[in-house]
């Protein structure tokens, strides 16, 4: 495309690889390559979004319940943090194009700082989920001992367990829920909203409060079944963990990239002529931001309005 057959005098430019004729060709190649990579990433997350879509349309109430359990404030703050980091990233590119080393270094550090804050908040959230026993994998939740005095038999565990789960939401005792979870299993005790909805639906059969699918999926022998509902909430949390987990993994890779950039910027590598690495890392960083822009409403906000109605 932009090659010239006659000249071979191109070896003066920094960072030009042997297979290219000139910088322009190289930049174009790298940029297209990065965009193709992002396309690939979009499809990768796309599979998860499809799963989200399918299950949300199957079990909207369970998803709302699960979503309401998430900490909106943390999600909200995290969204802002990521947006700030996107701004600093964009400015990094801006200053790299200007060849301003100090600003680059400062902004990269800031970007990394906000990225780390994001991950930190995420870690707090995850720990919280661990403590509340809503990690959908058995064994990855906090093990809660039975109140002292209870025997060793499984039966007794189950009785305590059943008693708690069907009663009003477990009372906070010294900041913790008082439930029994010997194996670190998935826990779910919040049934007011759904039980309320079920009742309304039964009183008013023509209303569309539950979907046809839900009218089967949450019921056993025509009665609302907490266990079946719990399974569906568990699916929400599974999707939540896979999506945010994969997103966090991308953040970590992004931080790695930033470290490398920092090193390069420190050595003052970038200039108006050569700033591709910054620009490309920026594309990646913004992409990860965009994923979160969708995750926030889809995971944290989807059922909020039920609480307030």
């Amino acid at each position, binding site marked *: 495309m932009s090659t010239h057959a006659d000249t071979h005098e191109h070896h003066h430019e920094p960072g030009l690889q042997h297979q290219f004729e000139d910088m322009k060709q190289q930049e174009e190649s790298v*940029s297209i390559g990065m965009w193709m990579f992002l396309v690939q990433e979009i499809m990768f997350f796309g599979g998860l979004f499809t799963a989200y879509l*399918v299950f949300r349309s199957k079990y909207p109430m369970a998803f709302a319940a699960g979503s309401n359990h998430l900490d909106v404030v943390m999600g909200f703050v995290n969204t802002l943090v990521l947006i700030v980091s996107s701004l600093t*990233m964009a400015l990094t590119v801006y200053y790299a194009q200007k060849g301003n080393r100090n600003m680059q270094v400062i902004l990269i550090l800031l970007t990394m700082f906000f990225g780390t804050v994001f991950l930190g908040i995420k870690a707090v959230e995850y720990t919280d989920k661990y403590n509340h026993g809503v990690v959908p994998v058995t064994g990855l939740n906090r093990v809660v001992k039975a109140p002292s005095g209870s025997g060793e038999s499984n039966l007794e565990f189950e009785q305590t367990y059943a008693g708690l789960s069907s009663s009003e939401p477990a009372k906070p005792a010294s900041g913790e829920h008082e439930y029994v979870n010997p194996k670190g299993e998935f826990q779910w005790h919040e049934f007011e909203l759904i039980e309320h909805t079920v009742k309304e639906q039964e009183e008013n059969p023509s209303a569309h409060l539950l979907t046809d699918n839900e009218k089967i999926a949450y019921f056993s022998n025509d009665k609302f079944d907490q266990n079946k509902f719990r399974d569906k909430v568990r699916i929400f949390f599974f999707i939540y963990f896979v999506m945010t987990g994969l997103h966090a993994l991308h953040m970590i890779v992004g931080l790695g990239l930033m470290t490398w950039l920092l090193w390069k910027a420190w050595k003052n590598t970038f200039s108006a002529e050569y700033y591709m690495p910054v620009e490309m890392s920026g594309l990646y960083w913004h992409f990860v931001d965009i994923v979160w*822009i969708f995750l*926030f*409403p889809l995971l944290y906000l989807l059922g909020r309005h039920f609480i*307030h109605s």
Partner: protein
Amino acid sequence: MENHNEQQHEHMNIPKYVGVFLVLVVGTILTYVVALQDLDWIFPGANTLLALGIALTKMTFVMLFFMHVYWSPKLVWLAAAGSFFWLAIMFAFTMQDYLTRGSGVFGH
């Protein structure tokens, strides 16, 4: 988006970056506030639709200005648009099955 059209020929500068940033912040606050209102009276699912609308707008801003798609060659536009088109295919054709199950194949 309209008010950014005149930037077509000049490059981004710091005030503009900050402007985009503010749009994103406002969008985030808006999406949060709106999520607390029950919009089901408009039509069921209005909340979700609105939330997605805001998210799409935010995404558009990030892509156009932070990722410089606005000034990029057609191929980049194509890649960006194409991948969302493909996502749409995946969603639409999967849901076309689920949403027509009731009266569908194995249904009575």
